[in-house]
């Protein structure tokens, strides 16, 4: 599904990583690991088409990712893309990654995460962990072919971690693929890639 060919990315004259090769099949979970500042987030942004000044080629379903008009990719970055002053419901309803607003679906996933969230409270009232669970419930309810998640397990309690792994399993059985970054050994993945391996120091 996703083919990364000799990907190199330079930032202010220094290469973060060079000649990275990756093949992502459908129904696969790939964990991207690496030390702090190694380029994990940059790599994820390259795959999702946010940072396009890389060297090499990224092919999504055999098409160059730069030429695709509306890829079915879900991206959830380190910053959650929500606005604190809007209510939870307004944030979820207006999120551009959410093609349909299915309130109940998201509520169900929130229950699985063990969260008591009221959709009419401002998002800023909730803790970072709760906001993460809201973001992940959105992730769970959206149907995409490829999910790109940056540090999805951070700020989660044990219950959340188990729940997320379960959602990963579910998504993969439905035919999607997931790429995520993580520091610790929380996420279960079928493949792992370490950015530090592609540095040239």
């Amino acid at each position: 599904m996703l083919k990364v060919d000799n990907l190199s990315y330079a930032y202010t004259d220094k290469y973060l990583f060079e000649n990275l090769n990756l093949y992502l099949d459908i129904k696969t979970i790939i964990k991207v690991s690496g030390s702090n500042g190694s380029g994990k987030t940059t790599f994820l942004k390259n795959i999702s088409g946010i940072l396009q000044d890389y060297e090499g080629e990224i092919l999504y379903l055999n098409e160059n990712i730069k030429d695709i008009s509306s890829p079915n990719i879900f991206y959830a970055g380190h910053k959650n893309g929500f606005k604190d002053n809007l209510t939870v419901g307004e944030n979820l309803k207006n999120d551009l990654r959410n093609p349909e607003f299915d309130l109940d679906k998201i509520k169900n996933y929130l229950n699985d995460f063990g969260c008591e969230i009221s959709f009419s409270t401002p998002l800023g009232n909730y803790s970072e962990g709760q906001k993460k669970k809201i973001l992940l419930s959105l992730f769970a309810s959206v149907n995409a072919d490829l999910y790109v998640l940056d540090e999805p397990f951070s700020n989660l309690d044990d219950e959340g971690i188990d729940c997320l792994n379960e959602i990963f399993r579910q998504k993969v059985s439905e035919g999607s693929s997931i790429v995520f970054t993580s520091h610790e050994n929380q996420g279960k993945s079928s493949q792992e890639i370490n950015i530090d391996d592609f540095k040239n120091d």
Partner: protein
Amino acid sequence: MNKTFNNLKTFYHKLGSSPWFYKISGITIPYVALFSFLFLSIGIVWGVFFSPTDFKQGDVYRIIYMHVPAASVSQAIYYTMTVAAVVSMIWRMKMAGIFIKSMAPIGASFTFLALISGSIWGQPTWGTWWIWDARLTSTLVLFIFYIAIISLYSSFSEKKSADQAVSILTLVGAVNLPIIKKSVDWWNTLHQPASIKFTESSSISPEMLYPLIISIFGFYLVVLLSGLMAMRAEIAKREINKEWFKNY
């Protein structure tokens, strides 16, 4: 015909190469320095000490040997930066970006010089340090643009992006500066300030013109000199880790 065209093309490609430019500028800088010193000193000394006293303005007019070249150069620099901005945006030529980055402070300095020298000239000649006519206002705006370009460049950590950003800003300024000048000019024709009438010094005698032209040449050469030196410094800064530079 074909040969000259091919030569031009090769020259243009060479211009885009930092090592070639670094080498050539290193060779030519001493000569440019020599000639700029010659022209500048001849022009200024001739104009300040040996040209005739003006009938209307007395001796104070001699500041035009500094003011006119500075004003001319400040505009010319912006024109060249505009061309470089177009090249930088369309062909992503690194040297064009280096050109803009290096010339902006030089342009700012000469614009500042033009403004100050113009004010000093204006006081005894027309009785005022400043007037909001089209020329002065648009020169002030030009100065602000130079400062904005310098400030914008420094706010980017990635040089490629900085080059593009200042190219955009330079182009926006280039499109709008004529509009600004025309509109202030037109506004002034409606609101003619009664007491002060600025007229061009219509005919200038040859004894005053020749040193002026030499001065102008001298200023352009000084700009060329500073530009070459600034671009060399910027190339050094950017390519310091490259092989060709280490082996230079």
